[in-house]
């Protein structure tokens, strides 16, 4: 009798173990990934937030408690305000212009014309090259004396523009050069996404419209654009996020400085400078959080608008 009892008890224990294993074993497999996530993503983020609210934080580790001093300082700082307005100017020129150009080019590339494969490759080349390396070659394109861009302008009778130089009050052409380069840099990725969006539009819609007498303009605005709208919004969100973080597009032109007269100062530049050059980790962290909140707000806004375009 006793034997039977212990046997029963044992088997129940085993069963309990089995259920325990079934329930918790999956988490075991998650541990390596979760560890990576915690160490390399969550911990730094938490740390940035803590740094941003610590007052007078130094690498030495002394601080006087928590507060909003870092934010107050950053928001009142002229460099930061300058960075903010430059970044906004960059985002709200580069993203819309790149989007419109990408729609037009994707539409052209989507036509069935012989030799299109060569054009397609050419357009996607920038995507597989580093933007800093490409930026270096654009430095020559923008060159005032021997640059291709000024040469082309001269063909149209336009005087040489000092794209990267320090001429004029606050060198206004510097940011224009960055914007042109930013647009060019953004195009390939955007075109690829839009092209796949275009290829998902059923050609029967165009046939139907053509039988009813629609011209190509009508088809573009009443069929292509609305049906492409979800993809357009997707690329705009992604591009806007990356444009707010503009930095790589600037350093090749002035050997690491933000413009010929420190006039193309951007948010990420400010963060980097506070962090590395000035050793003000609290200010850097506060600026990073402000940048995050701005991006977050615009992303939410776009998602909200996008909802109207789901069919």
């Amino acid at each position, binding site marked *: 009798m006793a034997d039977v009892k212990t046997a029963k008890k044992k088997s129940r224990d085993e069963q309990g173990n089995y259920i325990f294993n079934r329930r918790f074993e999956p988490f075991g497999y998650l541990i390596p990934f979760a560890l990576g996530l915690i160490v390399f993503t969550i911990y730094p983020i938490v740390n940035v937030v803590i740094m941003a609210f610590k007052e007078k934080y130094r690498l030495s580790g002394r601080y006087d408690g928590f507060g909003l001093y870092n934010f107050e300082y950053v928001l009142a700082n002229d460099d930061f305000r300058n960075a903010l307005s430059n970044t906004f100017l960059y985002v709200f020129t580069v993203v819309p212009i790149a989007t419109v150009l990408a729609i037009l080019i994707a539409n052209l590339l989507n036509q069935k014309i012989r030799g299109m494969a060569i054009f397609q490759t050419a357009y996607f080349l920038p995507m597989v090259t580093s933007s800093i390396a490409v930026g270096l070659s654009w430095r020559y394109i923008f060159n005032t004396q021997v640059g291709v861009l000024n040469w082309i302008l001269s063909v149209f009778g336009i005087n040489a523009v000092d794209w990267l130089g320090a001429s004029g009050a606050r060198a206004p052409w510097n940011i224009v050069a960055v914007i042109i380069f930013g647009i060019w840099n953004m195009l390939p990725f955007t075109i690829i996404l839009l092209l796949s969006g275009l290829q998902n539009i059923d050609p029967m819609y165009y046939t*139907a419209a053509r*039988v009813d007498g629609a011209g190509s303009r009508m088809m573009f605005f009443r069929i292509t654009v609305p049906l492409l709208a979800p993809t357009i919004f997707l690329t705009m969100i992604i591009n806007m996020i990356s444009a707010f973080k503009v930095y790589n597009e600037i350093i090749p032109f002035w050997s690491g400085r933000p413009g010929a007269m420190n006039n193309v100062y951007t948010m990420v530049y400010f963060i980097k400078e506070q962090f590395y050059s000035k050793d003000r980790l609290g200010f850097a962290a506060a600026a990073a959080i402000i940048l995050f909140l701005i991006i977050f707000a615009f992303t939410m806004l776009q998602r909200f608008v996008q909802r109207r375009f789901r069919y």
Partner: protein
Amino acid sequence: MHVRIDHLTKRFGDFTAVDDFNMDFDDGKLTALLGPSGCGKSTMLNMLSGILPVTEGHIYFDEDDVTGMPPQDRGVGLVFQNYALYPHMTVLENIAFPLEIKKVPKTERLEKAKEMAKLVHVDTLLDRRPGALSGGQQQRVAIARALIKEPRLLLLDEPLSNLDARLRLEMREEIRRIQLRTGVTTIFVTHDQEEAMSICDKIVLMKDGILQQEDAPQELYDDPHNLFVANFLGNPPINNIEGVIRDNAFVTRDSAVTIRYRNFSKDLPEGREVILGIRAEAAIISRDETHDFTGRIKSRYTMGKEELAFLNLGDQEIRVYLSTEYEDKPGEDANFHLRSKGVFLFDKETGERI
């Protein structure tokens, strides 16, 4: 509008999809283009709409040669197999779109669109997007969109193939109602013979790009020009019995059964291999000893008001109807008369009617 096609041919490379068609589509009538999958129905329709260029031959709308005319100038309304409704527009916008293209003022075109919506009974759904409509509703919207510009010719490419059985029945009546109401010349593509038989004024039956026969549905059924036509129409399908002509009578291939039929021509080609087509309803049980042929009952299935019986004619099998009060059991022989309709002889090799 009267449509005439003259030596109309379409080739894709070496492949001939539509081969030398000559025929008329009558003004104000509903004509079906009927045939198995891949026989060139859509190709034909697309040439009429102008979407596909013609390889050879001509298309006339009334007296005008429209062969090279671009689709938008032809004044045709087209309903696609999967409707092609614009997913980002509401029902009302979809219906009004052909007028929007023509730059008709907004209030006027919306007025007209509502009128069309009423005609096809979707006037309660005007603000919905196509994604929120059932298949039948989408089809009505597609028809309204095709009709709004008052086309001279309405073309429908298998408009019912996406619907379930009950809705198909309902919608084919609906198409007929709308067609009669508007009086528009309509060409309707289908591979379903019952659909074509039930609502069309005329059926154009095609196979492998070749016109087989064009006629009113009943004519086509009662007087098929070849074996393909006879086999394509009718449910249950017509019985095919293989045999030869001997002494002006049909003898099954194993010589087991001889059929003499009063309507056979007097000089059938002696010794020719033939196929005898008998529609199931053309054989009726004989109450006395007179008969056209005898078969052995193999099995019987009730179909409600009557029974379907399988008969053995030698080594071949045919289907006939029996009334339920007829008592013979499977295994017994039964005598049958043949009616004057529904019995045809075809040449075995060419399939042509003899």
